[in-house]
């Protein structure tokens, strides 16, 4: 810490005036970036990685998604599929159905929402592209058990909790950074 090479401070009055003027400029013309959240909410882009489900018709039960899932959120649960295409848990069995061919044993993925990190690796590893994405994002559950849906619950996407709010789309703007325009 020698005095040699120490820097000099600039003049004070101009700096103070400019700082105060800038503050005053934003006080008069505020450029608000926050969204008035539960009243307005963003309409997320179609490629947004939100809650997802699986297309039961397409899924072949290959377990690739279970293997690739980094947080080990996906579990393959055993299913029995009858010829009518209806899925039933193994315990109930499906062979009783009259006139049905012997049922096929298979597996289906179920996601534990408490573990899922929405990396969408399961989407990309799926050999038949069976996963269906949604842009539902703002959802939390009240009970621990709700984070682990059954297969039937998993097939239905959860309801968007901010469905009733005013949907806006963020648009980049030269003056304001982000402009929230009402969604069509």
């Amino acid at each position, binding site marked *: *810490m020698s005095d040699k*090479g*120490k*820097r000099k*401070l*600039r003049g*004070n009055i101009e*700096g*103070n005036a*400019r*700082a105060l*003027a*800038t*503050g005053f400029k*934003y006080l008069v013309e505020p450029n608000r*970036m*926050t969204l008035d959240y539960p009243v307005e909410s963003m309409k997320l*882009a179609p*490629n*947004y*990685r939100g809650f997802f489900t699986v297309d039961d018709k397409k899924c072949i039960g290959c377990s*690739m998604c279970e*293997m*690739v899932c*980094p*947080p080990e959120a996906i579990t393959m649960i055993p299913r029995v599929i009858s010829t009518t295409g209806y899925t039933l848990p193994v315990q109930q069995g499906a062979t009783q159905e009259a006139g049905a061919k012997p049922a096929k044993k298979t597996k289906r993925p179920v996601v534990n929402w408490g573990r899922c*990190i*929405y*990396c*969408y*690796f399961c*989407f*990309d*590893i*799926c*050999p*038949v*592209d069976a996963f269906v994405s949604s842009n539902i994002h703002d959802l939390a559950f009240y009970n621990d058990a709700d984070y682990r849906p059954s297969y039937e619950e998993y097939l239905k996407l959860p309801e968007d909790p901010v469905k009733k709010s005013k949907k806006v789309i*963020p*648009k*980049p*703007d*030269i*003056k*304001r*950074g*982000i402009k929230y325009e009402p969604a069509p």
Partner: protein
Amino acid sequence: MNLNEKVYDISEVGSIEPEGDREIVLQIGPAHPGSGHMRIKAWMDGDIITKVDADIGFVHRTSEWLSERRQFIKAIPIVERIMLPDTVHANLAYVLALEKILDVEPPPRAQYLRSLAAEINRITSHLYGIGLFGIFLGSSTVYMWAFGDREPFIDLMEMLTGARITNSYIVPGGVRWEMPKGFKEKAESTLQYMENRFNDYNDMWVKNPVVEARTVNVGVVDRNRAIKLGVVGPNLRASGVDYDTRKASPYAAYKDIDFEVPRMDHGDTYDRLLIRIEEIKQSIRIIRQILKDIPEGKIIADSIYSQLNPVMKKVFEQQQRVMFPAFFNQMRPASAESIARVEAGRGEIFFYLRTSGDKYPYRFRWVTPSFRNLAYFTDVAVGYKLADLPAIYGSIDYFPPEADR
């Protein structure tokens, strides 16, 4: 009240006994507004700091241990979560190391997209640093401004990758998503917005007399000392060393891109603030070049693409979304080792990966910039006043989880 009386034994690690009557030992953190997720032990003689010890490890996330017990592909989200303000760089560093072992070369367009994501990420990372520096000096305005201005860039990342922070954008062989339509226009207006905002940052923050008084000639590290202490990244360049991994060993598309490495002379806290703003300006320049020069072509290496099944190829043609070939699940690279170096927002990430032919990495080791800058912080704060401690701490842009890994 006797200040030297040890009423509570808070410390379990190391001695905190003050020496003599003049000394006080301050335990700043881990629950303190100015410490982050770590404990700074400061030995004070009056208002002067005589010794600083950083007690880290409060947010240790066992990233190396976890990654050594998982398939190679699963390490991507893990490394991202260590460097949350800087996810793309962590992802990129790991994938570069893995690609060397797998012997995959991504196509030029993927290289450009990687650089694009990395530069957007660098801007958000620097804004994060500037914002936290602001709150450490007591200016909540700059804190809010920087975090607000991060938002348009995060929106760009969301448009590109579908997620705001944890993008998981880069995979061996390329990137996962094509640049969406309309991205160039949106990026351009965001960049112009940021360029206009620099005037306000200058008036309100950089040239504010109080900021200058607090930062100029505080925490000075000259060139030789910076090299000796092993400083990396913007902090090194603020001390006048012309070193940038993007120039020293170019990765992604940086060989083809024309940019400058900003450098400062004094190495004080003020320079470490200025260099981040200069780097944002350079990043804006790089993004403009990338958007102009980006070549057409595939975003995934042919060797990966050829292993996709017909359904996946169809998906790629329709949605421009790269799916993973099945071997991503069961990657068993031959026994080899590789390193990768990436210039992240806070400095150079060094990555070492050793494989043994198994489906898990044999050794997974990385050194993050914040860890290297920590040694620097404990060394440089000595001799300054207590009020300079947050200024210096804020200016090195330290991110505790990144150092703890």
